[in-house]
């Protein structure tokens, strides 16, 4: 009994925090039709501005005001600079732009403010840490009271704003009918900018209030809070503020209450996994949740540009690539050089990650199901592989495929909500699942991983030793694995099943009308993609001595989706390009940084920053996702190079029919 009190109190505090972030998301979504995935990153960036100012002895109050203003202005900048030019694109495409901003802002914060290192942030005020009262062992301090009060006041103020003021009513109108709003003489750009300003302000306030709770400022942890708030917003149906508040309360409460259920108390990661379960349950109890006011019809991920000349040269490129890999594979020993051991190792990693990208091509490119959790499946595959090789002593050629087979059914778990939601909402649900994987399974000692220290991988079990430092056998093994999977996916693409996948992507109603079972297709697609991702994860595990939870953080799944969209979400070759960019990017950038005298340790961060910016640019420059013979090469095309036109099978006409 004594546990319920603190749990409830904590639940209220959490609900306030989630509510703040979620409200910003909902306001933005309702007015401009975009889910702002960058809400958390925006908060981080602004909070770091605050910290920098207080570090320079600016009083907290002024610094906070500046930070809040900055947060709002960043929001407006996102809207004006990158969303206004593409108002006519689908909500899904526009939200992908915000994913680009998530990456950009997060890594800009890392680079500008050294945010990668866990930094301690001083309390809001010296007295705020003082305990005001206690509920059954849980001390409630001034901080928490301020949090709850702020949320309630802001919430109330916003509700008044949307009902009483003209601007508020105009914003509600814009969410219902954009054309009619324009005809009323109301500028949609202005209304949208106001929404984003509010969203940015709310994000910053939320960030300021959360940070002392976290103790240290870590962009990874803030991502967790972002995902939770997106879940809260989804629970509220993404519709109105009162509903969002209810969603936040439900989530905050269930999160705390679940942890005190006897029997479940031993699972500390359960708290954050609750979001996923609550959403799935809610979706099935109340199918209306899946419908939103900002209507989304069949939405497919944007197709980046295609360069026609590649259709003709692709065989020669393939030949060149093959030759290159052959040389790498049989290259001389010795660590350095183009064909040396170190590079060979990187290429091996490319093939492992390439499989994970392939899983995205199948799931999101072929079937049109947005998934932000593929790298979590890779994590499952990696951990299974580690256990099978290290604990059971299986050789890798059994362990990895077995790991893939074990991961596939997990994919079906995500497939189930996919039967109810699609597009943006599915993206949020998959994001919630990353927390389940990360918090519940990877970070805990049992059953999967070895706890924070990770699970060791024994890549030398069996007749072939992959831990050889010259990386020859590793390279060839993973190359073969990648080629086999690629060939399979290509075969799928040209096969009737592949066409059935495309049909589901293009028109679910029509697919049903031609006898395709949506349920079967979606569940099969999710299982297959999870299996392929698991295979990739297992392959990736073979390149490391051990695997641990940070290797598969939720943020990585987001990065992977971003990169494959850049590279070409519908093409198998795109998977290879994305993997090359992911592994080799930091290496190349490191060399560049060293050349210019900058800190080479930041190479990964620069690469991420670059990919974020590139993603934003790509979505903007590509005219509404039309596949076909787009012959223009955007400027960035010279950087990210290989594209291939998606080409269906050519029927052989005239084979014997009169």
């Amino acid at each position, binding site marked *: 009994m004594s546990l319920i009190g603190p749990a409830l109190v904590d639940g209220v505090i959490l609900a306030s925090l989630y509510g703040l972030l979620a409200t910003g998301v909902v306001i933005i979504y309702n007015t401009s039709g975009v889910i702002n995935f960058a809400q958390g990153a925006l908060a981080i960036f602004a909070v770091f501005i605050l910290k920098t100012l207080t570090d320079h002895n600016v009083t907290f109050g002024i610094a906070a005001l500046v930070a809040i203003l900055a947060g709002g202005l960043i929001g407006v900048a996102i809207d004006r600079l990158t969303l206004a030019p593409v108002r006519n694109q689908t909500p899904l495409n526009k939200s992908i732009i915000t994913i680009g901003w998530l990456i950009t802002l997060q890594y800009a914060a890392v680079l500008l403010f050294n945010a990668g290192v866990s930094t301690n942030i001083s309390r809001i005020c010296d007295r705020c840490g003082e305990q005001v009262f206690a509920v059954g062992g849980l001390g409630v301090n001034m901080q928490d009271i301020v949090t709850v009060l702020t949320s309630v006041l802001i919430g109330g103020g916003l509700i008044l704003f949307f009902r009483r003021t003209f601007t508020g009513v105009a914003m509600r109108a814009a969410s219902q009918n954009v054309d009619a709003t324009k005809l009323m003489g109301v500028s949609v750009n202005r209304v949208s900018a106001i929404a984003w300003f509010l969203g940015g302000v709310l994000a910053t306030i939320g960030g300021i209030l959360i940070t002392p709770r976290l103790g240290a400022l870590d962009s990874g942890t803030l991502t967790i809070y972002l995902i939770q708030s997106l879940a809260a917003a989804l629970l509220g149906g993404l519709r109105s503020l009162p509903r969002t508040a209810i969603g936040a309360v439900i989530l905050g409460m269930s999160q705390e209450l679940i942890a005190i259920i006897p029997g479940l108390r031993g699972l500390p990661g359960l708290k954050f996994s609750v979001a996923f379960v609550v959403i799935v349950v809610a979706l099935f109890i109340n199918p209306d949740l899946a419908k939103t006011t900002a209507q989304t019809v069949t939405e497919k991920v944007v197709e980046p540009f295609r360069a026609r000349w590649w259709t003709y040269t692709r065989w020669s490129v393939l030949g060149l690539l093959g030759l290159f890999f052959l040389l790498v594979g049989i290259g001389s020993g010795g660590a350095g050089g183009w064909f040396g051991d170190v590079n060979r190792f990187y290429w091996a990693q490319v093939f492992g990650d390439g499989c994970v990208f392939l899983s995205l091509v199948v799931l999101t490119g072929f079937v049109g199901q947005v998934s932000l959790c593929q790298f979590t499946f890779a994590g499952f595959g990696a951990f299974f592989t580690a256990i099978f090789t290290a604990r059971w002593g299986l050789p890798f050629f059994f362990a990895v495929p077995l790991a893939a087979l074990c991961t596939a059914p997990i994919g079906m778990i995500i497939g189930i909500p996919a039967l109810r939601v699609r597009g943006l909402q599915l993206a949020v649900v998959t994001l919630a699942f990353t927390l389940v994987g990360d918090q519940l399974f990877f970070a805990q000692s049992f059953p999967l991983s070895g706890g924070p220290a990770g699970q060791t991988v024994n890549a030398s079990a069996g007749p072939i030793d992959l831990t050889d430092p010259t990386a020859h056998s590793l390279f060839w093994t993973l190359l073969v694995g990648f080629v086999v999977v690629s060939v399979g996916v290509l075969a799928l693409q040209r096969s009737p099943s592949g*066409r059935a996948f495309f*049909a589901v992507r*293009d*028109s679910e109603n029509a697919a*049903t009308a*031609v*006898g395709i079972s*949506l349920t079967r297709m979606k569940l099969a697609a999710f299982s297959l993609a999870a299996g392929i991702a698991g295979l990739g994860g297992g392959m990736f595990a073979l390149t490391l001595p051990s695997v641990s939870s940070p290797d598969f953080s939720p943020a990585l799944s987001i990065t992977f989706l971003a990169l494959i969209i850049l590279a070409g979400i519908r093409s198998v070759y795109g998977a290879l390009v994305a993997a090359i960019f992911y592994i080799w990017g930091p290496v190349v950038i490191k060399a560049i940084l060293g050349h210019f005298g900058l800190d080479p340790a930041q190479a990964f961060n620069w690469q991420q920053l670059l990919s974020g910016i590139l993603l934003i640019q790509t979505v903007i420059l590509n005219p509404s996702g039309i*596949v*076909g013979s787009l012959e223009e090469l955007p400027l960035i095309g010279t950087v990210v190079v290989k594209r291939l036109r998606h080409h269906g099978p050519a029927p052989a006409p005239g084979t014997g029919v009169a």
Partner: protein
Amino acid sequence: MALLEVDGITKHFRGVTAVDNLSLRVHRGEMVSLIGPNGAGKSTSFNCLSGLTQPDAGRVAFDGNDLLAMPPHQRALAGLGRTFQTVQLFGDLTVWENLTVAAQSRGAVGMVGHMFGMGQLETRRFRERARVIAQFVGIDDVLERPAKALPLRQQRLTELARALCLEPQLLLLDEPASGMDHAETDEFARLLMRIRKCFRLSMLYVEHDMRLVMAVSDYIYVLDFGRLIAEGKPEEVRNNPAVIAAYLGETHSAVAVG
């Protein structure tokens, strides 16, 4: 026993009764049309039959089986094909691929089999059927083009061909001739007749164009505000001077034109 027996279908939407106690029959080989003003409930009735909506009441028997108990894709496989009022093609696929997707939904080889390259034989059979149908309908010159790049008329023909590839017994056609002018409508009427004869199909279709309706139908049902208000054969109107006189006054009687 009729191929399609609809009894007492009712569907409410938010307080509005879209379909009210509708009953109709389609016998084998028959062409039946459903006419009525906009908003009369025709598309909703179709959606109830094809499975996009569940009716609130009523029974539907298709070839003796309870249609309402089948999930939507199952109804397609059981022989119920349909086209949509706003053309729903698989836009990014070529016309050819649109057809083969339908043809091979009866295939036995699953996804994994395909990844290993199985199922070549049955694929060939499905392709044959698709090719024959494409020639019959008249779209075999645009097979390579992506479906969304076609003009509307050919999109409608493609959708029709796709439904045929499914080997249906009954076709539900939702305003298949809308957007066509007089000449195109005549040609379309002839196509429908040919399809009925060669494929031995039955059809239930919604149409506004009276010339098409009177030319092609064996039986007509009239819907208004969700209710059936009249039914009968075209001849009963055409060859019955008394009816015309009653409607328009008896000053001179009408003479039937051949």
